[in-house]
């Protein structure tokens, strides 16, 4: 009962909202027509923006009321126009003094060229029709009630119709959600485009941070170990000159050289630790994090549940993220205890760092967290923070595909039973229609052999014989074909699913 009431209550505002789309459609179509017919091109982007605002609302409502999460379907926005070295901004073959015009050009081309804009328009145009359908139950109820008031006998019939319409409402809503997803959901193309966009972004950031890292190492080596080695060399030169004339002074200098070499080693150790901690390459992520925990002034509890070692670059990214998070907990969180949990969720390497500090960590402010995100971006990693004021702070780092070849329990890896059944059936029985009852029968018929033996078609009336023979041959070919093609198709799907984001293959 409750279910129908909720469905009807949701259908009413959705339907009314959809009816107002008539106005929006008229306005937007008018704007588009004007922008092309009269060259008032500046009207196009506002029109497209209005559409996008409306469909954004529709997506939100779909998520909340229809239980269908619909992601945005637009292509990634154009990158900002870059200033050239000569101070001009370029668009195609024209130069501009300010970035305004090229940027505006890019924007409208982006909106115009995006198929999602036109699908938005189609959705808005057709939405009032579906909205009216959503209002049917309410209208039926209202009509039935009003006729009953007037005492007309038709009220009974109308009442039955209202009941039927109300009963259908949940299905109506489900259809509406499906319809929304069809037109407003992301297509494989837009998913791929935004995926490539984010990959490019990650690629650039990785290259950037790598270059910065190398510069830092170069500087540290140049100012540190290298300089000290020069000093040692000079000291040894002086020792060489002094060793016969003034052995005491030479001995003192040698002591100095030894000290300098010791300092150089200490510096190199620090540097190496910053590049790739030795314990990480020696023992792997688990023990490296345990070593980190031992060196921390906080009470750190580490639990590691990994069946295999991730690839070294992933390990390194995870290690430095944890290190940074631990430093944050000491520096800002005011924490006493920290729990670090490393585990695998299927192919995903998941790290959870929890502390009992004061909370309030904000990735927008902390450059440390931003640095972690950048480090993780190279591996498609995601950083999630829950840090309410007063704590506790829980940071989760997910590195998908970090344990790429580990998980055999994946459902796509194994063919489902029914596919195996078809393959077995095809190979096992495909010969029967193809050879004895197909090709051999055909030969028998062509040479007009007397003995009908067990070729059943020859017992049947003459006119159906040839069609049946052809049908049998075709059936055999189809059975064999299915048996061969189904495993091939399956492994290709699996391979594609592994190589591309999973959601794409749901939207194909």
């Amino acid at each position, binding site marked *: 009962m409750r279910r129908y009431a909720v469905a009807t209550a949701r259908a009413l505002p959705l339907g009314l909202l959809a009816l107002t789309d008539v106005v929006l459609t008229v306005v937007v179509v008018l704007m588009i027509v004007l922008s092309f017919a009269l060259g008032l091109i500046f009207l196009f982007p506002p029109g497209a923006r209005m559409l996008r605002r409306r469909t954004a609302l529709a997506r939100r409502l779909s998520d909340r009321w229809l239980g269908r999460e619909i992601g945005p379907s637009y292509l990634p926005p154009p990158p900002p126009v870059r200033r050239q070295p000569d101070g001009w901004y370029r668009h195609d073959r024209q130069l501009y003094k300010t970035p305004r015009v090229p940027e505006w050009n890019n924007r409208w081309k982006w909106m115009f060229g995006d198929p999602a804009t036109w699908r938005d328009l189609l959705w808005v145009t057709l939405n009032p029709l579906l909205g009216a359908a959503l209002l049917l139950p309410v209208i039926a109820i209202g009509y039935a009630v009003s006729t009953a008031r007037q005492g007309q006998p038709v009220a009974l019939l109308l009442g039955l119709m209202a009941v039927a319409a109300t009963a259908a409402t949940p299905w109506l809503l489900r259809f509406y959600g499906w319809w929304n997803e069809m037109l407003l959901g992301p297509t494989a193309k837009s998913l791929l485009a935004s995926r490539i966009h984010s990959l490019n972004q990650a690629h650039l950031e990785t290259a950037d941070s790598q270059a910065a890292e190398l510069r830092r190492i170069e500087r540290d080596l140049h100012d540190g170990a290298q300089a000290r080695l020069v000093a040692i060399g000079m000291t040894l030169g002086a020792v060489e000159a002094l060793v016969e004339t003034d052995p005491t002074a030479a001995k003192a200098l040698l002591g100095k050289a*030894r000290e300098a*070499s*010791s300092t150089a*080693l*200490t510096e190199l*150790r620090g540097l*190496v*630790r910053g590049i790739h901690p*030795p*314990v990480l*390459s*020696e*023992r792997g992520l688990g*023990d490296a994090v*345990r*070593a980190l925990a*031992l*060196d*921390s*002034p*906080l*009470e750190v509890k580490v639990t590691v549940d990994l069946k295999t070692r991730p690839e070294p670059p992933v390990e390194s990214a995870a290690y430095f993220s944890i290190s940074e998070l631990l430093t944050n907990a000491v520096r800002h969180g005011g924490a006493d205890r920290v729990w670090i949990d490393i585990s695998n969720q299927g192919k995903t390497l998941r790290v959870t760092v929890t502390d009992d500090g004061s909370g309030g960590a904000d990735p927008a402010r902390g450059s440390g967290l931003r640095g972690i995100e950048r480090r993780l971006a190279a591996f498609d990693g995601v950083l999630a923070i829950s840090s309410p004021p007063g704590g506790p702070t829980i940071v989760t780092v997910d590195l998908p595909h970090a344990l790429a070849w580990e998980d055999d329990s994946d459902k796509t890896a194994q063919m489902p039973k029914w596919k195996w059944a078809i393959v077995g059936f095809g190979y096992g029985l495909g010969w029967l229609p193809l050879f004895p009852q197909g090709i051999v029968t055909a030969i028998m018929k062509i040479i007009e052999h007397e003995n009908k033996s067990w070729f059943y078609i020859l017992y049947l009336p003459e006119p159906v014989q040839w069609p049946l023979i052809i049908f049998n041959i075709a059936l055999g070919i189809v059975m064999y074909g299915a048996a061969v093609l189904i495993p091939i198709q399956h492994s290709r799907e699996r391979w594609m699913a592994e190589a591309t984001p999973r959601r794409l293959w749901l939207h194909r």
Partner: protein
Amino acid sequence: MSARAVIAEDLYLLREGLVHLLQAHGFEVVAAVESGPELLKALTTERPDVAVVDVRLPPTFTDEGLQAALAARRAIPGLPVLVLSQHVEQLYARELLADGSGAIGYLLKDRVFNAEQFVDAVRRVAAGGTAMDPEVIAKLLASTARHEPLGELTPREREVLELMAEGRSNTAISQRLFLSESAVGKHTAGIFTKLGLAPSDDDNRRVLAVLTYLNAARS
């Protein structure tokens, strides 16, 4: 009879240097090897009086040396091993000390520069004592500084504890800190009382007691 030593180090120059250094100080080097499996074999067949082992050895260049040393000590409990490394980790120190039978050293490779101190450490380990790198101790103390009751120690007592944890005797500590031996004795007694440990003269037991305490404080 001179003490028999086994050396494991993959860098040729350093290996030869260690061999010469130990020979010059009266050790008999029975084997100088360069990989983990060789080391394990040398340790179990030769049963040396002391082994000087580099953590990172071929073939995997991970912690082969450490693993071989730990495996050998499982087979021959109390086999004296001095582990050398380019870096020190509390984790490894704990693993080495975990069996509680002593005769363990864990030093940075830099310590070889100071021949006297290094040979002293080798002798201490050979005699069943311990030699922990000051850096390990510093890390231990830094990471446990916030925990009670270590915080109750006076600065002087902390200094004494650090040297004690390195494996030094009261005499050595008194020389290092320019104190009388009785004053050091008083400090150690103070430390033991504050940490709730029974006092003992045995160097090895002292270090183990300290490290066990530090271990316990964390878990």
